[in-house]
């Protein structure tokens, strides 16, 4: 290179930022004067400003609708992550609280004989659990592929987004930290009603998936035409079995109305539920 490198790419035109400020009515008087003098000097300059005024119409290669849709998705994902973090914090706090309520000093102490009899009792309980676990499970408690739902039964669908792949989860499917879950509801009763999607950990802890505040929402207001619910939830790093429940009730309800039982999820009368078991790894 014979001449020293000159990094300037522009002539004496107003800066890009000044042109944008002018177009958006944010320019100072001296900037307005400078831009208008530049426009008056050459019709091509005026055309540059006009192109900026016409927004995306002057940028035919850009796809503003697609960009806007992806921005919304990105914001939704950010919100879901924030909700997941809040849930994880709330769970950690609840666990810490329960530990505080049962301090080690208050735990009963056992004599050798009590340990011995306790051990025998535990062994018996384990045998009983094994016995019941080997029995066929009660239909409806754990939905499966083969299960035939009567027409009109409430149905929960859970979609797992992992990277760019989307799968509809089946009972027992796994999910892992960072997976994003989206929910859909089918056969929601017509007429007014409220719904919520909750998770139940193996510890019995119930937490909201949708909506994040743990209060039900009007079902038909929340559902999109294809039955999908808005937003998604990002899974935290807790592991183990978890049930996801879709709950529909004729009247508004909160998390306190839902109690996990051995058979599923107890709700108020006239409510309907459908659940799916997932393994968090």
């Amino acid at each position, binding site marked *: 290179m014979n001449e020293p490198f000159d990094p300037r790419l522009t002539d004496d035109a107003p800066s890009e*930022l000044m042109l944008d400020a002018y177009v958006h009515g944010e320019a100072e008087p001296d900037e307005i004067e400078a831009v208008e003098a530049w426009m008056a000097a050459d019709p091509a300059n005026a055309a540059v400003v006009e192109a900026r005024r016409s927004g995306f119409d002057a940028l035919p290669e850009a796809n*503003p609708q697609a960009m806007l849709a992806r921005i919304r998705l990105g914001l939704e994902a950010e919100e879901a992550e924030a909700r997941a973090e809040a849930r994880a914090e709330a769970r950690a706090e609840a666990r810490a609280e329960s530990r505080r309520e049962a301090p080690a000093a208050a735990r009963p102490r056992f004599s050798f004989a009590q340990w011995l009899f306790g051990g025998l009792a535990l062994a018996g309980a384990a045998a009983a659990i094994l016995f019941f676990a080997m029995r066929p499970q009660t239909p409806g408690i754990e939905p499966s592929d083969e299960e035939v739902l009567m027409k009109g039964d409430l149905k929960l669908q859970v979609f797992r987004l992992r990277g760019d792949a989307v799968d509809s989860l089946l009972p027992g499917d796994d999910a892992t930290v960072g997976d994003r879950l989206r929910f859909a509801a089918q056969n929601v009763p017509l007429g007014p009603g409220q719904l919520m999607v909750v998770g139940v950990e193996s510890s019995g802890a119930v937490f909201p998936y949708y909506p994040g505040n743990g209060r039900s929402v009007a079902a038909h207001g929340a559902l999109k035409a294809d039955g999908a619910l808005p937003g998604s939830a990002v899974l935290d790093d807790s592991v183990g079995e978890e049930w996801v429940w879709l709950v529909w009730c004729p009247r508004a309800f909160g998390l306190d109305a839902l109690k996990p039982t051995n058979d599923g999820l107890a709700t108020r009368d006239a409510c309907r539920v459908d659940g799916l078991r997932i393994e968090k790894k």
Partner: protein
Amino acid sequence: MPLEDDLDTLFRRYGPMVYRRALQILGDHGSAEEATQEVFIRAMKAKDRFVAEARPSTWLYRITTNYCLNRIRDSKRRRELLDERKAEVTPASVARDPQKMALMRGLLEEADPQQAQAAVAVFVDGMSHSEAARVLGVSRRTVGNLCDRFTTWARGRLAEGAAPS
């Protein structure tokens, strides 16, 4: 000047500006779209921190420039840029000298981050030192120093032989 709360309004108004800026620095439409999306996500998340006296265009300009400079510095992006130089896409409304802009991108990848910001404002955008000082939040003298240092460094880098990659 208030900042629109509503994403649609903000995007309709400033989306083309952000896209054009990103296209100018990154040099291809796909990357410009991605950058535009990311800038608006960041802007919506940070809008509570927007100072009402500032211009929305200046605020978004700053977010866009920082994002794009970070982007071209990452190594993967560097490899992509090498390919893009072969088929440079720069509409006349954005870059007045596409070959020189491609060379500048190569330099901006490697430049000191503060010098790169000043170089984009003054050399690429054509801002006066006063204008750049306001946007970058530094004094005019600092802008002048950063630009001088960038020019000296760039000349030395180019004198080493090959164009930067």
